[in-house]
C-alpha cells in the first residue's frame, strides 16, 4: 500500500438496502452533507438480496471498491436478512483475502436516520480505496 495515487478517483459500486442505507444516503443528500462522488449506488430491497457473485463480478469488471450498506443487526426490515448477509459477506471476504482483494469490499450498517454516518463512511471508504490504488485486475481478465 503506497501513497495516495495522484488524481486517482476510485469507482465504488454500492449495494444499499432500501430501508436503511439507501434512505440514509437520501438523508445525507437532503441534509446537504458533502461526500465524495465515487459511489454508484444500486438499491436492493435487503442486503440479503446480495448474491456474493455480485461482489466478484464488480471486482472483475474493474470496480475499485465495493460498498455494502444495510440496517443495523437486529433492525432488518425483514427481521433477519442482514444476519444472513453478514455471514455471506464474511465468507466471501475470507476467500478474497487469500488474494489480497478483501480490502476493497466493505460492509457497513447505516440506518435511515444516519445521513451523517453515510457521508463520513463514504469519505473514509473513498480515502481507503485511494490508498489502495486502482484495481489491479487486468482489462482482459474476467
Amino acid at each position, binding site marked *: 500500500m503506497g501513497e495516495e495515487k495522484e488524481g486517482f478517483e476510485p469507482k465504488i459500486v454500492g449495494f444499499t438496502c432500501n430501508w436503511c442505507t439507501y434512505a440514509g444516503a437520501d438523508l445525507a443528500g437532503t441534509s446537504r452533507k458533502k461526500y465524495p462522488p465515487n459511489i454508484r449506488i444500486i438499491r436492493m430491497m435487503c442486503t440479503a438480496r446480495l448474491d456474493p457473485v455480485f461482489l466478484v463480478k464488480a471486482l472483475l469488471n474493474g470496480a475499485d471498491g465495493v460498498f455494502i450498506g444495510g440496517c443495523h443487526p437486529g433492525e432488518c426490515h425483514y427481521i433477519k436478512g442482514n444476519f444472513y448477509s*453478514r*455471514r*455471506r459477506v464474511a465468507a466471501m*471476504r475470507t*476467500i478474497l483475502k487469500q488474494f489480497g482483494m478483501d480490502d476493497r469490499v466493505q460492509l457497513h450498517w447505516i440506518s435511515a436516520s444516519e445521513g451523517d454516518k453515510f457521508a463520513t463512511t463514504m469519505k473514509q471508504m473513498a480515502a481507503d480505496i485511494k490508498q489502495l490504488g486502482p484495481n489491479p485486475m*487486468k482489462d482482459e481478465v*474476467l
Partner: protein
Amino acid sequence: MKGAELAYGELGDFFKGLLEKNVVDALILPYRVGTSVSYMLVRDKDRIVAPESVIFAPSFGVNAANIVKGWLIDEKVGIVAKPCEIRAAIEMIKLKQLNADSVLLIAVDCFGAYPNEVYAMHYAEIGDQVDAAKINELAGKGIPIRDACAICDNRLADVGDVVIARTNGDKVSVAGHSKMGEAALSAVGLELKDKDLERAAEKERIAAEAASNLEKLPIPDSQEALEAFLRDCIVCKNCRDVCPVCYCKECFFDQPIGNPTGGDLLNLAEARGAIAVPVNQLLYHLTRVYHVSTTCVACGACEDACPKDIPLTRFYPVLTRKVQELFKYVPGKDVAEPLPFTTYEEEELEECLR
C-alpha cells in the same frame, strides 16, 4: 460404540448379509477390474466377490457420494467408502440431496490415496492396502499420494453409521457409529461388544502430518498469482460436475452470466479493448469456491477431474477450510448441525466486514 472383530475374509459375508437380511436394498462398493478400482452398485449378493481385497485400496477416482446425488427414493443404499466420501454424503443429506433414511453410510479407514490411474499403473508396488509406513516408502520411490490426501486430517473412519477400522494385522473392527448402524450390525447377526475406536494418538499424528504438508503446498496468494493459476482453465466445469456438494439443478454458470456468446462477447471486447478467451475463469472459480465454502469435504475430486491438470487442491480445499474455520464448522461431522449459511448468531463476525 459397539462392534465386532472380523477377519478380512469375513467381510464378504458381512456385506452379503446386509443385502440378504434386507438391511439395505443395494450396496455401492469398490470393485476391481484388472488392476484398477472403481465402484459398483450391487443388488445381487453373489456379485460381491472378495471385497476385503478392494475396499481398502488406496485409489481415488470419483467421490462415491456423487453417485447418489439426488437419491431421493425410499430404497435404501449402503455406501462403503472412504471417510471423505461419507462426509460428503452427510453434507448432501443436509443439502436435501439425499434421503437420510435411504442410506447406510459405511466408512472405511483410509491412509491416503493415489489417483486411480496412478494406482492402476503401480498396483504391483502399492498392493491391496497401505499404511503410513508404506506410503512414506512409496513417496520415496516417487509415487506420492494425492495432495488432497496429504493435507487431509480426517483419514480414520469416524463418521457415518458403520465404521470399518483396520485395528491390527489380520483383523478389522466393524462398529456401529449410529443407532441405525448398530441395528444394521445386529441384523446381520454380529455379536456386538463395546469397542473403543477413538485412536486419539493416531489422529494427532495424522493432523500434525497434514498440517506440515499443507504448509509446504504452494498456494496462489495474490490477484496476479490467481490469474496465472487459472490461466489454463477451459471452463469445462468438470470440477463442478464431479463435486458431491455442488448440486444446483441449474448452476448459475449455465445461465447467460456464465456463457456470454456472440454479441455479448463482442460487447465485452468493445468495452475493454480486448478480452482473454475463454472468458470467466475467475468469475467461475471464485463464485464456485464460495458456493462450496462451507460444505467442501476436501476430497480433491475436482483436481482429479481437471483435464488441464490445474492443481485445484491448492484452491478449493485450502480456501474452504478458511471459511469453515471462520464458522467453526466441520463438514460431514454431524448431520444435526445446521449449515452455516442457514443460521446465524446475533452478535458475530463484525471484525470480518470491513
